[in-house]
């Protein structure tokens, strides 16, 4: 259900129209790294027609660029403002995916976002979940949007 043909247009629309950034979708995504290094991730849970989570995983320089575009500032460090902004980006991306799912007849409800950042961390859980990850590029680097879901 949540394949790249749902994720990629939803993410592109959010970035172009709500954040004001052009991005490139990787047709052949690299594998999602097991551990994220010097990165910021924002995760939002969903439930309803199916249960799952949407996550955006960004290296710090990508998170700084996205946050700067969203906040119309020049962020140079991963501050609370940047972490909040990335939570908001996850909210918007999950909202776009929710809207795409609704068009396919699957009603979803979203949780609040959680942000994770650090030098080295993994984000996983629920091994039986189906997983899809799509890689995107902006000029500052690459990032992933991941969906895990059951049912």
């Amino acid at each position, binding site marked *: 259900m949540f394949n790249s043909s749902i994720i990629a247009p939803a993410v592109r629309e959010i970035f172009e129209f709500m954040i004001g950034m052009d991005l490139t979708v990787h047709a052949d995504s690299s594998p999602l790294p097991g551990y994220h290094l010097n990165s910021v991730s924002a995760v939002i849970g969903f439930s309803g027609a199916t249960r799952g989570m949407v996550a955006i995983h960004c290296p710090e320089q990508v998170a700084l660029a996205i946050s700067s575009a969203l906040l119309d500032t020049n962020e140079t460090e991963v501050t609370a403002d940047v972490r909040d902004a990335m*939570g908001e980006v996850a909210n918007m991306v999950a909202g776009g995916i929710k809207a795409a799912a609704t068009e396919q007849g699957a009603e979803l409800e979203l949780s609040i976002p959680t942000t994770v950042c650090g030098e080295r961390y993994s984000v996983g*859980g629920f091994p039986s979940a189906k997983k899809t990850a799509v890689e995107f590029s902006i000029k500052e680097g690459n990032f992933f949007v991941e969906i895990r879901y059951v049912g």
Partner: protein
Amino acid sequence: MNLAQYIVEATQEVFTTMLMEEVSAGAPLETRNERFSDSISSIVGMAGANKGAVAVHSPVNVACRITELFLGMEVESLDDDVKDAMGELANMITGNVKGKLEEQGQDIRLSIPTTVDGDNYTVECPGKHEGTIVPFSFQDCRFLVEIHFE
């Protein structure tokens, strides 16, 4: 709504009934240390008309002890069993909290658990919502359970 009380009751009920272990609750933390070292955090989202999240934060050695309670076998280091057990613990605690909130007329559905581990990381729930974090202990082990709810 006393979120700390919900967390205390839910965590103690889950440990007593599912893990056969008594846990003591401390007073909710006044200041939250958002940085975790050599730890594992499991987060379950609450979706619906009312939104929120519950997180369990535990040092890796304590997560191994909790996993031993689940599996009844010795666990020496962080592996997939530990990650699964901590996700399941967060799921059970959140499910218990969900039941209590639904008794108060709240409409809640749960996401799947997300598990974060790392040497040095932060976990935050940004946004304007009520939240609290409660320390728990059993034997010589300490861990934290946190809730945020709109």
